[in-house]
């Protein structure tokens, strides 16, 4: 399995470290071989030669070089040594997931470094962590015409790759997991997005009698629902108001009540403008049908 990118960068930083201040006639390949044979703790006591090193650190470098023989044997603390090795993991007890932290970024370098940082923080907080699991990357592609006008045949492809890593915390207290997430957020790195799903397990039995808890739960639910309903009711209009918009003056004009045909059939005042034709039934044999038609006409009107 290929080594992750952050290990390569750390190897590069080890190459840059040296015990004495920089000399112009230094041979690079000799020093690299020397550093490889030395133990990591002794080679890392000096400060790295970086453009970002502030003058006070450079002064420290000169001090170190003069006392280098005694400081070569100084052993770094275990936590500092562990920072240069792969992150330690705590063994899970039951394997039940408590938190799924997903890290997403457009670039791999800072994503892998941050995932590694999350793993180390989980170890020091005592959380059994699984990861970083690489989830499938998402590639979005767009093809655009190169010019701003015509020339459809010459186009250009662009893409955006989203890399994902998953860190899963198992068998931990939710408060500690919250602490870990807060720590990650406080030390968040640019270009890395985070999303966490938290899981909680609780027993089926209730602490006091079942009735007391149910009552308390129903009271809570009613209170919450009541709040929501009052909010909704304050926003909604009453049915009278809604109907008034359709029937009352001056809103009737909006839907054409005063139009040529007098609006839709059945509008107010329709009977005054139009008399329905009344059929006269003869008494002989049509008594039952008349009653039925009268009943039907009454129900329809």
């Amino acid at each position, binding site marked *: 399995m290929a080594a992750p990118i952050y290990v390569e960068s750390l190897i590069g930083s080890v190459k840059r470290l040296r015990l004495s201040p920089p000399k112009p006639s230094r041979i690079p390949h000799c020093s690299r071989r020397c550093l490889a044979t030395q133990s990591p703790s002794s080679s890392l006591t000096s400060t790295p030669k970086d453009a970002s090193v502030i003058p006070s650190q450079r002064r420290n470098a000169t001090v170190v070089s003069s006392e280098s023989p005694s400081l070569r044997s100084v052993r770094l603390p275990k936590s500092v040594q562990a920072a240069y090795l792969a992150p330690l993991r705590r063994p899970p007890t039951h394997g039940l997931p408590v938190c799924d932290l997903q890290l997403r970024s457009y670039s791999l370098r800072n994503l892998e470094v941050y995932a590694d940082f999350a793993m180390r923080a989980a170890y020091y907080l005592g959380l059994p962590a699984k990861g970083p699991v690489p989830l499938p990357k998402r590639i979005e592609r767009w093809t655009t*015409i190169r010019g701003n006008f015509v020339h459809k045949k010459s186009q250009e492809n*662009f*893409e*955006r790759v989203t890399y994902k890593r998953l860190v899963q915390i198992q068998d931990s207290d939710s408060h500690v997991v919250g602490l870990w997430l807060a720590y990650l957020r406080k030390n968040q790195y640019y*270009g890395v997005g985070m999303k966490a799903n938290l899981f909680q397990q609780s027993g089926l039995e209730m602490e006091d009698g079942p009735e007391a808890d149910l009552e308390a739960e129903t009271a809570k639910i009613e209170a919450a629902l009541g709040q929501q309903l009052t909010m909704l009711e304050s926003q909604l209009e009453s049915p009278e108001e*809604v109907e008034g918009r359709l029937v009352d003056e001056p809103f009737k004009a909006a839907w054409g009540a005063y139009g040529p045909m007098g609006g839709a059939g*059945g509008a107010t005042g329709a009977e005054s403008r139009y008399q329905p034709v009344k059929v006269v039934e003869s008494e002989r044999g049509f008594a039952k049908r008349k009653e039925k038609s009268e009943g039907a006409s009454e129900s329809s009107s």
Partner: protein
Amino acid sequence: MAQFRAKKLDLGCFVNIMNIRDHTKRKVFEAHEPERQALRYTIRNTSLPQRTRAQAQLQLSQMHCYTRPTQIRNRCIMGGKGRGVFREFRMARYQFRLNALAGNIPGVKKASW
């Protein structure tokens, strides 16, 4: 348009008469969306009387065209172009290409595979 246009320009992107109009349409739609949805529901509810449904239909047709969601069009925020606009970047294709090549869009690079 004059009745809905904001007294003070409240656009953050490229200022164009088309962008101003589209922005005004979006604000008016947002303000009248509940009323429109209520009328649409009234029209489509088959258990209501026919009279109410017809009235709602008429009232919906009388509403100003700026309240309709179909009038809204995604425009380029850099040039105001209405065609060839990518949703993820809110830019038209040429502006997207210029900014992508300049490195202004995070994560986007020239594809080669």
